[in-house]
């Protein structure tokens, strides 16, 4: 039901001209009432971004979800993320306190 409620809100925001991406972990909910752009990740309810404290995993999911804004081309389209619960490997986290800022190429 959480999927449906936020998916419907996303439809209304999108109709107002605000682009949205909608994460989900229950495929049948997404298929029943799809949001404008849907991103499915095979994780658990309550741990949509990943495990607690797993910064690398959460960043990877967030990065992929936000990237769907340009990858989903049709209303109601779905992007399935390739991650696996507790068995995935993820890039080194970025933007943590104490890290130098990323190099910007001219």
């Amino acid at each position, binding site marked *: 039901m959480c999927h449906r409620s*936020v998916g419907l809100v996303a439809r209304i925001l999108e109709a107002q001209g605000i682009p949205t991406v909608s994460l989900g972990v229950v495929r049948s909910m997404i298929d029943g009432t799809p949001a404008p752009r849907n991103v499915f990740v095979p994780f658990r309810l309550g741990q949509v971004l990943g495990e607690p404290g797993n910064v690398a995993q959460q960043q990877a999911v967030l990065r992929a979800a936000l990237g769907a804004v340009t990858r989903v081309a049709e209303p109601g389209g779905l992007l399935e993320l390739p991650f696996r619960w507790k068995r995935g490997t993820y890039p080194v986290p970025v933007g943590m306190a104490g890290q130098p800022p990323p190099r910007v190429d001219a």
Partner: protein
Amino acid sequence: MTRWWNQLMSRVFARVPRLSESYGRRSGAVEEVPLPPLAGLATLLSAARVGIVTAGGVHLAQDPPFDMQDPEGDGSLRMIPGDAGAGALRITHDYYDHRAADEDVNCVFPIDRLRELVAAREIGAVAPRHVGLMGHLSGTQLERLLNRGAAEIGNVFAMGGVDLVLTVPG
């Protein structure tokens, strides 16, 4: 139905994904709000200001909790400042297992992860305000969210200059 029963069932559903999938199939579709054409991102993602709508029952500790007594849920909104620390937030929601999110709110409201992507210059900025919902809604409470709340959410993000919104279920 008592709160402890709802909380118990939420833990069962979290552990057995097939139950959630079956529940989703039985829930059917909602046709009242049509699927609109996609709105284009007006800027590069690396410059975009990003907001979050979480249906995970997240709210400021000082704000009223969501109503857990109404079987149709609570269709009201909670505004979450973009600079809110995790320690200032609480979760009130009996219909999903939020023990992991109680430990790390980023599981359903990735505010720290957004800040890190800003620091790494992968996105432009964090929205000045985000929105917390209790997503387990039906009947009049779902209508309340869709007929009044959603427009308010749109105004909050429009006033905040938000380019892109991420929605997260509980």
